[in-house]
């Protein structure tokens, strides 16, 4: 079977977020780009599945929508062990636009992994949209996935607990934390091999985005913290009751 992992190219999680002067665009100056953390965990789990003894996984493909500068993010995915990469050569305009582009290249996969959201626009949409465009089943909030003798066991979180599911293929799994412990650090051998792995550049199709970002705002600066002495827990509770009115 073949696995596809969707890869988002996002600013490093420690980035100080800035916008252009009229607050209409993210200021990418000096930003370091990384694989979206959830996508990286998804890829890690896909690699683990492939490496298990009775694995029936032939290949793991990673795909994104982005310009040429996002290829280093894809090559990082190749360096940790993905077999090939596909980049749809376009600026990601909105989730529907991205999902529509990915739908063109997400053909012939039994299992597709998407991160539950991306740490930039937190849209939580591309995975579900892609599943609908491909008319395949999806499971969201997936925190565990096992392949046993070709059958798929999924752990998902529901509001108020967790469930184990038996699912058929093809399937799009929208994964969250817990799916894998920690992302992998690429070994140098992997970094070298990434150079020679196949990276296909696909031409985008014509799609109109459905939404557009008009402007950004930074959160209002917080008033300074009101400190209470260590032995004044009672006073703190009073303040929460009477001043903040949150108790």
């Amino acid at each position, binding site marked *: 079977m073949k696995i596809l992992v969707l890869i988002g190219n996002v600013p490093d*999680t*420690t980035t100080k*977020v800035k916008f252009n002067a009229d607050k209409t665009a993210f200021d990418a100056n000096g930003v370091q780009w990384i694989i979206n*953390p*959830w996508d990286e965990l998804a890829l890690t789990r896909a690699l683990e599945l492939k490496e298990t003894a009775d694995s029936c996984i032939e290949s793991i493909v990673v795909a994104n929508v982005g310009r040429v500068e996002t290829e280093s993010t894809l090559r990082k995915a190749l360096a940790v062990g993905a077999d090939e990469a596909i980049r749809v050569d376009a600026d990601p305009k*909105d*989730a*529907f636009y991205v*999902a529509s582009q990915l739908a063109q290249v997400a053909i012939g996969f039994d299992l597709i992994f998407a991160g539950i*959201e991306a*740490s*930039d*626009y*937190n*849209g*939580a*949409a591309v*995975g*579900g*949209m892609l*599943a*609908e*465009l491909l008319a395949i*089943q*999806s*499971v*969201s*909030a997936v925190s565990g996935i096992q392949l046993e003798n070709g059958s798929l066991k999924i752990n998902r*979180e529901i*509001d*108020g*607990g*967790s*469930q*184990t*599911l*038996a699912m058929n293929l093809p399937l799009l799994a929208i994964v969250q934390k*817990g799916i894998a412990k920690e992302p992998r650090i690429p070994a140098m051998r992997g970094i070298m091999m990434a150079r020679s792995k196949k990276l296909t550049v696909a031409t985008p199709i014509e799609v109109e*985005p*459905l*939404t*557009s*970002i*008009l402007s*950004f*705002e*930074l*959160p209002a600066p*917080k008033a300074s*913290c009101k*400190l*209470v*002495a260590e*032995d004044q*827990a009672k006073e*703190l*509770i009073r*303040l929460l009751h009477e001043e903040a009115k*949150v*108790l």
Partner: protein
Amino acid sequence: MSVLLYTENWDGKFKKVSFELASYAAKLAAEMGVSISAISLGPVEEEELTKLGNYGIPVVLSASCSNYTSLDNQAIAHAVASAAQQIGATVVILAQSNLGKAIAPRLSVKLKAGMVSGVQGLPVSLNPFTVKKMVFTGKAFANISIQTAIKVITLAPNSFGVFENPVKLTIGKFDAGLSDTDFTTRIESTNKVTGKVLLTDADIVVSAGRGLKAPENWGPIEELAALLGAGIACSRPVSDEGWRSHNEHVGQTGKIISPNLYFAFGISGAIQHLGGVSASKCIVAINKDKDAPIFEAADYGIVGDVFKVLPQLIEAVKESKS
């Protein structure tokens, strides 16, 4: 023209988030001057459905088929989409919950509707239809306009509030025309968290970090949470160490929550942690290091030893309750 809201239920019961959603939908429909309906999928007793009327919902379409309890993404998306088409909905509202996040994008494609998740409060403008949402995991907000005739949004929890507004409720039967074979999600087992408040549903969250030093020190945290009816959360190092389940991890790569009150015990407040909690209405930090960044984000704070402060807080809460 109409507003449709999808009210999730858990074992046939609505939770606070459903009533917040109802309050929100009622207000939005009033502002837009359009009618409003709710859709409920799965077995929910009439008495429970009637509660939606308290929050301004005049019509609920109920499909009581028990197949829906498998939370099958394709089937639920299909059912909500057909309800939307049936009533001619122009805005479809879901909760920003695990299920809402799974269904909304599928609806977006089905209805050719632009979608925005995690919307904060009412639209900034109705024409163009523009909503505000958190981006960069709490570090900024974006105003996003939806260009399509139909709009799909999920509402960030605690971003609107619950408002009573009793109206007479009519319950209509709904059949999405699905057969058993359309439900392909097979549940093998369910592990319900019982007796605990859901983290994403909690008004108050009590959270602790590495400052608690060891997993066996969580007793007072659990006690305080029980007293306050609060959810329990933790920082990333704590879940990475396996001291607490990753279900409790809040932060940039864990759960993103927005309770009314967030207690942070022994959490230094790394930027990744703040990303997951900065939308909380009130943050209280207890940390021995007065320079810990959590105090920059906090509204109230105690610089001190968590092991000294915790028992006192527990006492103070008990006292205030009696």
